[in-house]
């Protein structure tokens, strides 16, 4: 395997993918620096002014020096600030859910592959059952039961997505398990966990990275959908999906900025992530090497 620098160089051969990575990095930085970049803390109700509600982009605030570059929403919230904070939520939820799903999926998938037999069958039927449910439906039901909150959204997303990882891991692990190097370390008498984590896992990773990057995009889209439907996060702390939903009723009356700007941001974010994932899929697939 080549080093990370080599991988990056090969990644950049695709200009579109390179641009997507740059866009993603930019958005991630903006999200991280949101508290410093945003002109207003959109979640602090004391900083909002209802007298500034629904101002078009470029309007000046009535009582302060602030200029609303992307306009304000129905509560007088600065759209730019709300979008930066919303981006933060989207990314945090997306990555946390992916990490959680990945960890759970790895554990379940590897155990399933190693154990085989009835345990394997049982786990995989459970995964089938979960995959048979639309992810959005499962997440809606869970959130209805759990109540609102970022932690609960993550939990719902993990529950809706773990099976993808488990299936992928099991597939790869079943192939790897039969290979000679595993037979060799078994003959050496290494312990089960050691074989699992030191030998099997690293060789399953490339496939998992691809699944995980794709699922980050899916998780972010799912979170936005849930917020759009009004479940998950409190109305006073809107994420991108909730911002879009809030502006929706104003679309017909010409106040486009409340919905359109967060919509474009969400579109850019998910597009960037999916392009990166696609490029990684090509790079990490041995069968496509040299193509």
């Amino acid at each position, binding site marked *: 395997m080549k080093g990370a620098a080599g991988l990056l160089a090969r990644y950049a051969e695709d200009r579109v993918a390179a641009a997507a990575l740059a866009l993603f990095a930019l958005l991630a930085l903006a999200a991280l620096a949101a508290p410093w970049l945003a002109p207003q803390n959109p979640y602090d109700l*004391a900083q909002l002014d*209802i007298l500034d509600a629904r101002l078009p982009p470029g309007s000046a605030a009535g009582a302060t020096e602030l200029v609303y570059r992307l306009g304000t929403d129905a509560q007088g919230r600065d759209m730019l600030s709300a979008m930066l904070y919303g981006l933060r939520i989207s990314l945090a939820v997306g990555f946390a859910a992916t990490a959680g799903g990945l960890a759970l999926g790895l554990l379940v998938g590897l155990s399933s592959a190693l154990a085989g037999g009835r345990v394997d069958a049982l786990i995989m039927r459970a995964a089938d059952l979960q995959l048979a449910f639309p992810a959005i439906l499962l997440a809606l039901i869970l959130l209805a039961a759990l109540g609102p909150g970022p932690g609960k959204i993550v939990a719902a997303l993990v529950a809706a997505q773990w099976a993808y990882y488990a299936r992928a891991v099991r597939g790869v692990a079943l192939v790897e398990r039969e290979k000679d190097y595993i037979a060799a370390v078994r003959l050496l008498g290494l312990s089960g966990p050691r074989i699992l984590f030191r030998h099997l896992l690293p060789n399953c990773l490339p496939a998992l990275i691809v699944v995980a990057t794709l699922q980050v995009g899916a998780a972010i889209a799912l979170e936005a959908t849930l917020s759009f*439907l009004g479940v998950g996060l409190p109305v006073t702390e809107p994420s991108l999906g909730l911002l879009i939903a809030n502006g929706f009723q104003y679309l017909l009356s010409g106040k486009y900025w409340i919905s359109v700007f967060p919509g474009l941001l969400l579109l850019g974010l998910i597009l960037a992530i999916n392009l990166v994932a696609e490029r990684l899929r090509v790079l990490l697939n041995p069968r496509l090497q040299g193509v």
Partner: protein
Amino acid sequence: MPAFLRLLPAMLLACALSVAQARDPGDLVIGFGADVSSLDPHFLNAVPNVAAAAHLFDALVHVDPDGKLVPGLAVSWQAVDATTWEFKLRRGVKFHDGSDFTAEDVMFSLERPAKVVNSPGPFTSYTRQIASRQIVDPYTVRLKTPAPYGPLPLDLTTIYMVSKKAAANATTEDFNSGRAAVGTGPFKFGAFRRGEAIDLVRNDAYWGGKPAWQHVQLRLLTNDAARTAALLAGDVDAIEAVPTPDIARFRANPALRLEQKVSWRTIFWQMDLSRDQSPFVTDKAGRPLAHNPLRDVRVRAAISKAINRQALVERTMEGLAIATGNIVIPGIVGHVDAIKPDAYDLAGAKRLLAEAGYPDGFALTLHGPNNRYVNDEQVVQTVAQMLTRAGLQTRVETMPLSSYFGRARAGEFSFALLGWGSLAGDSALRSLLATPNPDIGWGGFNWGRYSNPELDRLVRAALGETDAAARAKLAGQAVELAMRDHALVPLYHQYASWVMRKGLSYRARVDEFTLANAFHPQ
């Protein structure tokens, strides 16, 4: 999941691009703004259900667009003594099945609300005052109350007359299927497609004159953007509950006609006034407080002063409301002209909070519905914003009406938004602030369990007063007492609005009812 309906407008927009189909000039399609859960007129006491039922059924007493009582199936009524009301019935009225409407049907219809099972909002508060009923002759009935009771005719505007023959032993489901939905109203049952539409056919023999429309469809379009899109696309002829963002555009559109009126509905906050520890009032770190600050009248006064009603009305409600300090609208019993809305006074609010021992405020969660009143979710957020400026730390939780009312009734909230429409201040107080007592139907919406013997006394006296002037005086005193005590925090009276295509007219109604029979071709 009603939330799914939020996706509907996108689909409807797509439909809007296709050519609107031509409709027969004798047909009328109206977009309702709220869901109708049943066609059983005795099932749920909520405006959407009652308004839908009004197409099929009549009450003894009707309400005109301005809120005045006018003859319905009763041509006249009078108190023959202090505790007896006599109603003279209209002669020659036929049910949709051709049978005659008589005193027997009145007896049956007044008994039925108490027999309806699983009602999420019973009508019994209007029938419980009737201790005995008597048929004097087939067109005269007498109703006795245990104590003098003035508002009985008003109560009976909400109790619809069903056919004893058709509805004997009928369940709510029999009304929804149409089997028992046999009334005397201007339209006959066509079809009830739950969550979608109600189809109605003209009752040519209607006692009030032949309706203008051969077929009427009440389409249930609960999503604001969907309702607007349907009107613009010509799928419906008129809509109720016009979304506030669209009003200005509709007003400027020469192909449409807008009708508005101040509605009887007052929007206000109910506060937890009985418990010393309230679930959603804490210190700013989330720890319980020694006492519930909402029980201190200074804190309630501070909250009222901290709310900038003018900004709320102009910005959040986009001008479609009037700030108020009263419980009922001007011009009806119990409205006190002298009570003005509390002026916005942030410094005064902070001073009062400090006086009450909360110089740094406290933490409060505001609860509200998100699919019932005009802009309800936005209003809750705006008030949270205003209270935050006064030094409180606020959180907002909104939810669909289906779970909201039940939880509020169970006392799960500390500070909750409610809208109440009433044509009398004493009746409103009986439901909202009288000491809760299920046996007599009092305090059914007194979520904060406010209890004030003096208020109870005044309300009882007002309701028992048959002399109009004396009753108005007592009701006014009761309202003044409640407001002096800041027992609830009134915000505003909302506007009811309708938009229709040009060529139609509708007289805006104070009770927010949308009645197909009141739409007229010009």
